[in-house]
């Protein structure tokens, strides 16, 4: 039951974030928003590059090992890998990375402000914490999660292509064929990236705003943020994949 209440509070926080956005939060908090864009985006680049690059390398390597035993030719590997990367790997892996790296940071920052009474001080100054703290982080996460997903997908695909070309002598043209990729695949991937980009900061900010106690409480809030944000990514992946198969891809 408490999980349901927590979900309800998360939805209320999402509603308030939109409300403050329409009231000009990003204009008022433009400096915070710019800093958050940098924090979420630029500072995640190395993590995304390494993780998606290694994932692309290993995935293509393993697939080609298996395909080599069954099929005589590899022409379908590249297009299928690119399709899977766009539909699934890029948004979900990038989402999980942002959930851990950025989600923990948001929860720790807001949680520290709660336990040091800075959030109370904001309220006394007639400044709403959602306006000041949540909305800029929310939109920075949404924008950068989409951009990092596109970037991470490209890195993964290029890394996979290098393995295919140099280890199995598959031509660049054959690997980079977009014969299996359609507009619905791109829409599905971007839909997931946007949804994760919304869910992660809300889960993290909620954990931060509900921090109790001292530094121990901040630690617990950080853990809760990472767990909830990662859980949100996985559940949304399941739901949006189902939606995509039913309404975007037609018969799989």
């Amino acid at each position: 039951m408490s999980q349901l209440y927590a979900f309800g509070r998360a939805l209320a926080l999402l509603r308030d974030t939109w409300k403050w956005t329409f009231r000009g939060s990003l204009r008022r908090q433009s400096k915070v928003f710019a800093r958050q864009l940098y924090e979420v985006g630029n500072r995640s680049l190395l993590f995304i590059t390494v993780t998606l690059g290694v994932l692309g390398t290993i995935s293509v390597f393993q697939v080609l090992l298996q395909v080599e035993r069954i099929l005589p030719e590899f022409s379908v590997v590249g297009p299928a890998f690119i399709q899977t990367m766009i539909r699934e790997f890029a948004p979900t892996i990038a989402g999980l990375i942002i959930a851990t790296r950025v989600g923990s940071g948001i929860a720790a920052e807001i949680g520290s402000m709660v336990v040091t009474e800075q959030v109370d001080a904001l309220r006394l100054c007639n400044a709403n914490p959602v306006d000041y703290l949540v909305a800029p982080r929310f939109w920075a996460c949404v924008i950068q999660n989409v951009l990092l997903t596109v970037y991470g997908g490209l890195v993964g695909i290029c890394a996979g292509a290098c393995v295919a070309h140099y280890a199995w002598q598959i031509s660049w043209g054959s690997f980079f064929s977009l014969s299996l990729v359609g507009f619905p695949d791109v829409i599905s991937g971007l839909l997931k990236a946007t949804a994760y980009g919304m869910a992660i900061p809300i889960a993290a900010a909620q954990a931060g705003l509900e921090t109790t106690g001292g530094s121990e409480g901040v630690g617990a809030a950080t853990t809760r943020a990472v767990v909830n944000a990662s859980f949100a990514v996985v559940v949304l992946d399941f739901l949006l994949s189902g939606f995509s198969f039913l309404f975007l891809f037609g018969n799989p």
Partner: protein
Amino acid sequence: MIRFEHVSKAFGSHQVLDDVSLVVERGEILFIIGTSGAGKSVLVKHLVGLLRPDAGRIFLDDVDVTSLSEREFYPIRKRCAMVFQHSTLFDSMTLAQNVALPLRKHKGLRAQAAEVEAVRRLDQVGMAAEAARFPSDIGDGLRKRVAIARALTLDPEYVIFDEPTTGLDPMAAANVDQLIRALSDDFGVTSIVVSHDLRSIFKVADRVAMLYQGKVLLDGPPSAFRATTDPVVRQFIEGRPEGPMQFPRKA
């Protein structure tokens, strides 16, 4: 005038306030004392809507503020400022921006005008030269001064000081005491001071209320506090670790 009427508050199974009633007259300086965890800060936070009571009612000039919404509390917070225990300056803002924030949000001043006024306010606490610095660049005592400047920037009628002299050197603490007294004497500001500092109590307070086990154990002038024979209050005044006083468990 501030009235707390039969206020109770619990966190989980821990009853922090139990049927607390207290009146603060206009222009008065009330010191609320008690051991750590006695519920002093919890009580005063109810006045500005940072906490909501489980039972009881709170009045500010006969206006019942107990169940006001967050938005309805804005005008109350304009009249009733609070200096927090740990200063609580915003790390990402300069000292001037910290002091300017209430001016911008409550009075709707533009950023530049608010910062000019903020520097003037900082000058009153001897901090104008540091206006462009960040809270992390200065020590606790100076941060406290800036927090006081921020709280007074809207010329409030009521000010809550949560342990204002904790962590300050004796000179800085004496300055804060002087300031609290001057606010009352010169401007008629009503102050509620949460404190452990016996020196400040005897120097500044008009009245003292001691919270113990969620209830008001003593409520009277400093002379009555000093003369009391209540063994718990005596133990507190004399700072003896042994005695009848039971220390509250952690909430």
